[in-house]
Protein backbone atom coordinates (compact mmCIF):
# COMPACT_ATOMS: atom_id res chain seq x y z
CA UNK A 1 0.00 0.00 0.00
CA UNK A 2 2.84 2.34 0.91
CA UNK A 3 4.52 1.61 -2.39
CA UNK A 4 1.23 2.32 -4.22
CA UNK A 5 1.00 5.73 -2.53
CA UNK A 6 4.64 6.59 -3.21
CA UNK A 7 4.24 5.41 -6.81
CA UNK A 8 1.19 7.64 -7.24
CA UNK A 9 3.01 10.61 -5.72
CA UNK A 10 6.06 10.06 -7.93
CA UNK A 11 3.93 9.70 -11.04
CA UNK A 12 1.85 12.74 -10.10
CA UNK A 13 4.97 14.76 -9.32
CA UNK A 14 6.34 14.12 -12.75
CA UNK A 15 3.15 14.31 -14.79
CA UNK A 16 1.79 17.34 -12.95
CA UNK A 17 5.14 19.03 -12.26
CA UNK A 18 3.69 22.35 -13.46
CA UNK A 19 1.01 22.22 -10.78
CA UNK A 20 3.55 21.39 -8.05
CA UNK A 21 5.71 24.28 -9.30
CA UNK A 22 2.70 26.63 -9.27
CA UNK A 23 2.04 25.96 -5.58
CA UNK A 24 5.75 26.09 -4.70
CA UNK A 25 5.91 29.55 -6.29
CA UNK A 26 2.76 30.75 -4.49
CA UNK A 27 3.75 29.44 -1.03
CA UNK A 28 7.38 30.61 -1.20
CA UNK A 29 6.13 33.99 -2.42
CA UNK A 30 3.83 34.34 0.59
CA UNK A 31 6.65 33.26 2.94
CA UNK A 32 8.91 35.91 1.42
CA UNK A 33 6.26 38.59 1.92
CA UNK A 34 6.14 37.58 5.60
CA UNK A 35 9.91 37.82 5.83
CA UNK A 36 9.99 41.23 4.11
CA UNK A 37 7.49 42.65 6.58
CA UNK A 38 9.67 41.53 9.51
CA UNK A 39 12.80 42.77 7.70
CA UNK A 40 11.45 46.26 7.00
CA UNK A 41 9.94 46.48 10.46
CA UNK A 42 13.42 45.82 11.96
CA UNK A 43 15.13 48.35 9.70
CA UNK A 44 12.67 50.96 10.92
CA UNK A 45 14.22 50.37 14.39
CA UNK A 46 17.47 51.93 13.11
CA UNK A 47 16.09 55.24 14.38
CA UNK A 48 16.63 53.87 17.88
CA UNK A 49 20.03 52.11 18.26
CA UNK A 50 19.05 50.40 21.49
CA UNK A 51 15.97 48.59 20.14
CA UNK A 52 17.87 47.78 16.95
CA UNK A 53 20.64 46.06 18.95
CA UNK A 54 18.01 44.16 20.92
CA UNK A 55 16.35 43.02 17.74
CA UNK A 56 19.67 41.84 16.25
CA UNK A 57 20.43 39.99 19.48
CA UNK A 58 17.09 38.15 19.21
CA UNK A 59 17.81 37.26 15.58
CA UNK A 60 21.16 35.67 16.52
CA UNK A 61 19.37 32.97 18.53
CA UNK A 62 19.40 29.42 17.07
CA UNK A 63 15.66 29.51 16.35
CA UNK A 64 16.10 32.50 14.05
CA UNK A 65 19.23 30.95 12.52
CA UNK A 66 17.09 27.94 11.61
CA UNK A 67 14.60 30.39 10.15
CA UNK A 68 17.42 31.93 8.11
CA UNK A 69 18.27 28.52 6.67
CA UNK A 70 14.61 28.13 5.77
CA UNK A 71 14.70 31.60 4.20
CA UNK A 72 17.66 30.53 2.06
CA UNK A 73 15.68 27.53 0.75
CA UNK A 74 12.66 29.74 0.09
CA UNK A 75 14.67 32.36 -1.81
CA UNK A 76 16.46 29.72 -3.92
CA UNK A 77 13.23 27.90 -4.81
CA UNK A 78 11.39 31.12 -5.63
CA UNK A 79 14.27 32.51 -7.70
CA UNK A 80 15.06 29.38 -9.73
CA UNK A 81 11.41 28.55 -10.37
CA UNK A 82 10.95 32.21 -11.26
CA UNK A 83 13.62 31.83 -13.94
CA UNK A 84 11.80 28.74 -15.20
CA UNK A 85 8.51 30.68 -15.31
CA UNK A 86 10.15 33.56 -17.17
CA UNK A 87 11.51 31.15 -19.74
CA UNK A 88 8.07 29.56 -20.10
CA UNK A 89 6.55 33.02 -20.58
CA UNK A 90 9.12 33.74 -23.28
CA UNK A 91 8.12 30.49 -24.96
CA UNK A 92 11.48 28.82 -24.29
CA UNK A 93 11.50 25.14 -23.32
CA UNK A 94 7.72 24.74 -23.14
CA UNK A 95 8.13 21.00 -23.74
CA UNK A 96 10.89 20.75 -21.14
CA UNK A 97 9.14 22.51 -18.25
CA UNK A 98 9.07 19.33 -16.11
CA UNK A 99 12.82 18.86 -16.42
CA UNK A 100 13.28 22.58 -15.77
CA UNK A 101 11.35 22.25 -12.50
CA UNK A 102 12.80 19.02 -11.11
CA UNK A 103 16.37 19.20 -12.41
CA UNK A 104 16.94 22.96 -12.47
CA UNK A 105 14.75 24.47 -9.73
CA UNK A 106 14.87 21.50 -7.33
CA UNK A 107 18.16 19.80 -8.31
CA UNK A 108 20.39 22.84 -8.78
CA UNK A 109 18.48 24.53 -5.96
CA UNK A 110 19.33 21.68 -3.55
CA UNK A 111 23.05 21.98 -4.37
CA UNK A 112 22.97 25.75 -3.81
CA UNK A 113 20.97 25.27 -0.63
CA UNK A 114 23.45 22.77 0.85
CA UNK A 115 26.39 24.99 -0.09
CA UNK A 116 24.82 27.80 1.95
CA UNK A 117 22.99 25.87 4.66
CA UNK A 118 25.93 23.77 5.93
CA UNK A 119 28.15 26.76 6.86
CA UNK A 120 25.11 28.56 8.26
CA UNK A 121 24.32 25.56 10.44
CA UNK A 122 27.91 25.09 11.63
CA UNK A 123 28.70 28.75 12.38
CA UNK A 124 25.23 29.99 13.27
CA UNK A 125 23.88 27.14 15.39
CA UNK A 126 26.58 24.65 16.44
CA UNK A 127 29.16 27.33 17.32
CA UNK A 128 26.58 29.74 18.66
CA UNK A 129 27.81 31.88 21.55
CA UNK A 130 25.38 33.88 23.67
Amino acid at each position, binding site marked *: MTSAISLTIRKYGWRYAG*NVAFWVQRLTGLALVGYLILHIHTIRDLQNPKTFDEALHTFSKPLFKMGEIGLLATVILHALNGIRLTMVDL*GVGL*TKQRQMFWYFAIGVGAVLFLAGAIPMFIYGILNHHG
Partner: protein
Amino acid sequence: MASFTFRIARRDTSAVGREQSFQVELEDRMTVLDALFLIQREQDPTLSFRCSCRVGMCGSCAMRVNWQPRLACQTRVATLEADTITVEPLATLPVLKDLVVDMEPFFRQWKKVSPTLHPRDKSSKTLAVVPPNSAFGKQAAVKRDCITCGACYSACGMTGANEGYLGPAAINRAMLRLMDPRDDLVDERLKVLNNVDGVWRCHTQFNCVAACPKSINLTDSIMKMKRALLFPKKFHDKRNFVDNP
Protein backbone atom coordinates in the same frame (compact mmCIF):
# COMPACT_ATOMS: atom_id res chain seq x y z
CA MET B 1 -7.65 -12.68 -14.83
CA ALA B 2 -7.08 -10.38 -11.88
CA SER B 3 -9.42 -8.99 -9.27
CA PHE B 4 -9.91 -5.23 -8.87
CA THR B 5 -11.93 -3.04 -6.54
CA PHE B 6 -13.68 -0.19 -8.32
CA ARG B 7 -14.70 2.71 -6.10
CA ILE B 8 -17.19 4.63 -8.17
CA ALA B 9 -18.68 8.01 -7.33
CA ARG B 10 -22.47 7.68 -7.44
CA ARG B 11 -24.92 10.52 -7.54
CA ASP B 12 -28.53 10.83 -8.60
CA THR B 13 -30.84 13.82 -8.50
CA SER B 14 -29.95 14.60 -4.88
CA ALA B 15 -27.15 17.05 -4.29
CA VAL B 16 -25.07 14.72 -2.14
CA GLY B 17 -23.01 11.99 -3.75
CA ARG B 18 -21.74 8.72 -2.30
CA GLU B 19 -19.11 6.17 -3.14
CA GLN B 20 -19.87 2.57 -4.05
CA SER B 21 -17.38 -0.29 -4.29
CA PHE B 22 -17.56 -3.12 -6.83
CA GLN B 23 -15.36 -6.21 -7.16
CA VAL B 24 -14.62 -7.19 -10.75
CA GLU B 25 -12.52 -9.83 -12.45
CA LEU B 26 -10.74 -8.40 -15.50
CA GLU B 27 -8.60 -9.78 -18.30
CA ASP B 28 -5.17 -8.30 -18.78
CA ARG B 29 -5.98 -6.01 -21.70
CA MET B 30 -9.33 -4.71 -20.43
CA THR B 31 -9.94 -0.98 -20.00
CA VAL B 32 -11.75 1.05 -17.36
CA LEU B 33 -14.68 1.36 -19.77
CA ASP B 34 -14.84 -2.45 -20.09
CA ALA B 35 -14.95 -2.66 -16.31
CA LEU B 36 -17.78 -0.11 -16.14
CA PHE B 37 -19.80 -2.12 -18.70
CA LEU B 38 -19.15 -5.30 -16.71
CA ILE B 39 -20.39 -3.66 -13.52
CA GLN B 40 -23.45 -2.25 -15.30
CA ARG B 41 -24.29 -5.62 -16.86
CA GLU B 42 -23.68 -7.89 -13.90
CA GLN B 43 -23.90 -5.87 -10.70
CA ASP B 44 -25.78 -2.59 -10.99
CA PRO B 45 -27.77 -1.70 -14.12
CA THR B 46 -28.41 1.82 -12.79
CA LEU B 47 -24.74 2.86 -13.12
CA SER B 48 -24.57 5.77 -15.57
CA PHE B 49 -21.66 6.77 -17.76
CA ARG B 50 -21.16 8.18 -21.23
CA CYS B 51 -19.34 6.54 -24.11
CA SER B 52 -19.63 6.22 -27.82
CA CYS B 53 -16.75 5.23 -30.07
CA ARG B 54 -14.65 3.13 -27.64
CA VAL B 55 -11.49 3.94 -29.61
CA GLY B 56 -10.52 7.33 -28.17
CA MET B 57 -11.82 9.57 -30.92
CA CYS B 58 -15.22 10.82 -29.72
CA GLY B 59 -14.23 12.20 -26.32
CA SER B 60 -17.43 11.14 -24.51
CA CYS B 61 -15.92 8.88 -21.85
CA ALA B 62 -13.56 11.37 -20.16
CA MET B 63 -13.65 10.86 -16.39
CA ARG B 64 -11.29 10.95 -13.45
CA VAL B 65 -9.60 7.60 -12.99
CA ASN B 66 -7.41 7.49 -9.90
CA TRP B 67 -7.77 11.30 -9.61
CA GLN B 68 -6.53 12.06 -13.11
CA PRO B 69 -8.78 12.97 -16.04
CA ARG B 70 -8.49 10.23 -18.66
CA LEU B 71 -10.51 8.58 -21.40
CA ALA B 72 -12.01 5.43 -19.84
CA CYS B 73 -11.77 3.60 -23.17
CA GLN B 74 -8.06 4.36 -23.54
CA THR B 75 -7.04 3.52 -19.97
CA ARG B 76 -6.02 -0.09 -19.56
CA VAL B 77 -6.58 -1.12 -15.95
CA ALA B 78 -3.21 -2.93 -15.81
CA THR B 79 -1.33 0.29 -16.62
CA LEU B 80 -2.72 1.96 -13.48
CA GLU B 81 -0.57 -0.37 -11.32
CA ALA B 82 -3.18 -0.43 -8.54
CA ASP B 83 -5.68 -2.95 -7.13
CA THR B 84 -8.15 -0.26 -6.16
CA ILE B 85 -9.35 2.10 -8.85
CA THR B 86 -11.29 5.24 -8.07
CA VAL B 87 -13.60 6.48 -10.81
CA GLU B 88 -15.16 9.92 -10.52
CA PRO B 89 -16.84 12.32 -12.94
CA LEU B 90 -14.81 15.17 -14.45
CA ALA B 91 -14.11 17.96 -11.98
CA THR B 92 -15.37 21.54 -12.50
CA LEU B 93 -18.34 20.45 -14.63
CA PRO B 94 -21.78 19.92 -12.99
CA VAL B 95 -22.67 16.26 -12.41
CA LEU B 96 -25.92 15.03 -13.98
CA LYS B 97 -25.78 11.43 -12.71
CA ASP B 98 -22.94 9.19 -11.49
CA LEU B 99 -20.14 9.69 -14.03
CA VAL B 100 -22.13 11.81 -16.48
CA VAL B 101 -21.38 15.54 -16.42
CA ASP B 102 -23.06 18.48 -18.09
CA MET B 103 -20.62 19.69 -20.77
CA GLU B 104 -22.48 22.99 -21.21
CA PRO B 105 -19.89 25.21 -19.40
CA PHE B 106 -17.15 23.71 -21.59
CA PHE B 107 -19.02 24.29 -24.86
CA ARG B 108 -20.19 27.74 -23.76
CA GLN B 109 -16.51 28.74 -23.78
CA TRP B 110 -15.91 26.75 -26.98
CA LYS B 111 -18.61 28.77 -28.79
CA LYS B 112 -17.15 32.10 -27.62
CA VAL B 113 -14.11 31.75 -29.91
CA SER B 114 -16.22 30.96 -33.03
CA PRO B 115 -14.65 27.51 -33.49
CA THR B 116 -15.66 27.04 -37.13
CA LEU B 117 -13.79 28.32 -40.18
CA HIS B 118 -14.94 31.69 -41.52
CA PRO B 119 -13.41 31.80 -44.99
CA ARG B 120 -12.85 35.05 -46.85
CA ASP B 121 -14.48 33.73 -49.99
CA LYS B 122 -17.50 31.71 -48.92
CA SER B 123 -18.48 30.70 -52.45
CA SER B 124 -15.04 29.41 -53.42
CA LYS B 125 -15.10 25.87 -54.76
CA THR B 126 -11.33 25.35 -54.93
CA LEU B 127 -9.65 23.25 -52.27
CA ALA B 128 -7.23 25.12 -50.07
CA VAL B 129 -3.66 23.84 -50.01
CA VAL B 130 -1.88 24.01 -46.67
CA PRO B 131 1.86 23.42 -47.16
CA PRO B 132 3.04 21.04 -44.41
CA ASN B 133 6.12 23.18 -43.82
CA SER B 134 4.19 26.42 -43.31
CA ALA B 135 3.73 27.74 -39.76
CA PHE B 136 0.06 26.71 -39.84
CA GLY B 137 0.82 23.33 -41.37
CA LYS B 138 3.27 22.51 -38.59
CA GLN B 139 0.93 23.66 -35.81
CA ALA B 140 -2.13 21.99 -37.30
CA ALA B 141 -0.36 18.63 -37.50
CA VAL B 142 0.04 18.44 -33.72
CA LYS B 143 -2.83 20.60 -32.43
CA ARG B 144 -5.89 19.68 -34.52
CA ASP B 145 -6.52 16.33 -32.81
CA CYS B 146 -8.69 17.84 -30.04
CA ILE B 147 -11.77 15.66 -29.44
CA THR B 148 -13.45 18.12 -27.01
CA CYS B 149 -13.50 15.55 -24.22
CA GLY B 150 -13.13 18.21 -21.51
CA ALA B 151 -10.16 16.56 -19.75
CA CYS B 152 -8.08 19.75 -19.97
CA TYR B 153 -10.99 21.88 -18.76
CA SER B 154 -11.40 19.55 -15.78
CA ALA B 155 -7.67 19.44 -14.96
CA CYS B 156 -7.09 23.21 -15.26
CA GLY B 157 -6.64 24.97 -11.94
CA MET B 158 -8.21 28.17 -13.27
CA THR B 159 -11.53 26.98 -14.74
CA GLY B 160 -12.83 25.85 -11.36
CA ALA B 161 -12.38 29.24 -9.74
CA ASN B 162 -13.28 31.35 -12.81
CA GLU B 163 -16.41 30.33 -14.66
CA GLY B 164 -15.70 32.86 -17.37
CA TYR B 165 -12.28 31.48 -18.31
CA LEU B 166 -12.16 30.18 -21.88
CA GLY B 167 -10.15 27.11 -20.94
CA PRO B 168 -7.33 25.40 -22.82
CA ALA B 169 -9.36 23.59 -25.50
CA ALA B 170 -11.17 26.72 -26.71
CA ILE B 171 -7.94 28.73 -26.85
CA ASN B 172 -6.21 25.93 -28.76
CA ARG B 173 -9.05 25.91 -31.30
CA ALA B 174 -8.92 29.70 -31.57
CA MET B 175 -5.17 29.50 -32.23
CA LEU B 176 -5.68 27.00 -35.05
CA ARG B 177 -8.31 29.23 -36.66
CA LEU B 178 -6.17 32.34 -36.20
CA MET B 179 -3.16 30.72 -37.82
CA ASP B 180 -5.26 29.40 -40.70
CA PRO B 181 -4.50 31.67 -43.68
CA ARG B 182 -7.98 31.01 -45.13
CA ASP B 183 -9.76 32.37 -42.09
CA ASP B 184 -11.10 35.91 -41.94
CA LEU B 185 -12.36 36.35 -38.37
CA VAL B 186 -9.02 37.46 -36.95
CA ASP B 187 -9.82 40.62 -34.99
CA GLU B 188 -13.00 39.22 -33.45
CA ARG B 189 -11.21 36.13 -32.15
CA LEU B 190 -8.24 38.13 -30.87
CA LYS B 191 -10.67 40.37 -29.00
CA VAL B 192 -12.18 37.36 -27.19
CA LEU B 193 -8.70 36.07 -26.31
CA ASN B 194 -7.39 39.46 -25.16
CA ASN B 195 -9.45 39.49 -22.00
CA VAL B 196 -8.88 38.88 -18.31
CA ASP B 197 -10.85 35.64 -18.80
CA GLY B 198 -9.07 34.94 -22.07
CA VAL B 199 -5.45 33.87 -22.46
CA TRP B 200 -4.30 36.08 -19.57
CA ARG B 201 -6.09 33.85 -17.06
CA CYS B 202 -3.60 31.04 -17.78
CA HIS B 203 -1.00 30.63 -15.01
CA THR B 204 1.08 28.04 -16.89
CA GLN B 205 0.31 25.17 -14.53
CA PHE B 206 0.54 22.76 -17.49
CA ASN B 207 -2.27 20.63 -15.99
CA CYS B 208 -4.03 20.64 -19.36
CA VAL B 209 -0.91 19.26 -21.05
CA ALA B 210 -0.64 16.53 -18.41
CA ALA B 211 -4.30 15.58 -18.79
CA CYS B 212 -4.80 15.76 -22.58
CA PRO B 213 -5.42 12.20 -23.87
CA LYS B 214 -4.33 13.37 -27.33
CA SER B 215 -0.99 14.72 -26.03
CA ILE B 216 -1.64 18.23 -27.33
CA ASN B 217 0.64 20.90 -25.86
CA LEU B 218 -2.20 23.26 -24.99
CA THR B 219 -0.05 25.60 -22.90
CA ASP B 220 2.12 26.12 -25.97
CA SER B 221 -0.99 27.26 -27.87
CA ILE B 222 -1.94 29.63 -25.06
CA MET B 223 1.58 31.10 -24.93
CA LYS B 224 1.54 31.53 -28.73
CA MET B 225 -1.66 33.53 -28.43
CA LYS B 226 -0.24 35.65 -25.59
CA ARG B 227 2.70 36.54 -27.82
CA ALA B 228 0.40 37.24 -30.76
CA LEU B 229 -1.46 39.75 -28.58
CA LEU B 230 1.77 41.33 -27.31
CA PHE B 231 3.27 41.64 -30.80
CA PRO B 232 0.28 42.02 -33.13
CA LYS B 233 2.30 43.35 -36.08
CA LYS B 234 4.63 40.37 -36.06
CA PHE B 235 1.64 38.04 -35.84
CA HIS B 236 -0.18 39.67 -38.74
CA ASP B 237 2.97 39.73 -40.88
CA LYS B 238 3.40 36.02 -40.25
CA ARG B 239 -0.18 35.33 -41.29
CA ASN B 240 0.27 37.30 -44.49
CA PHE B 241 3.51 35.51 -45.19
CA VAL B 242 1.77 32.15 -44.83
CA ASP B 243 -1.04 33.41 -47.03
CA ASN B 244 1.31 34.24 -49.93
CA PRO B 245 4.26 31.90 -49.75
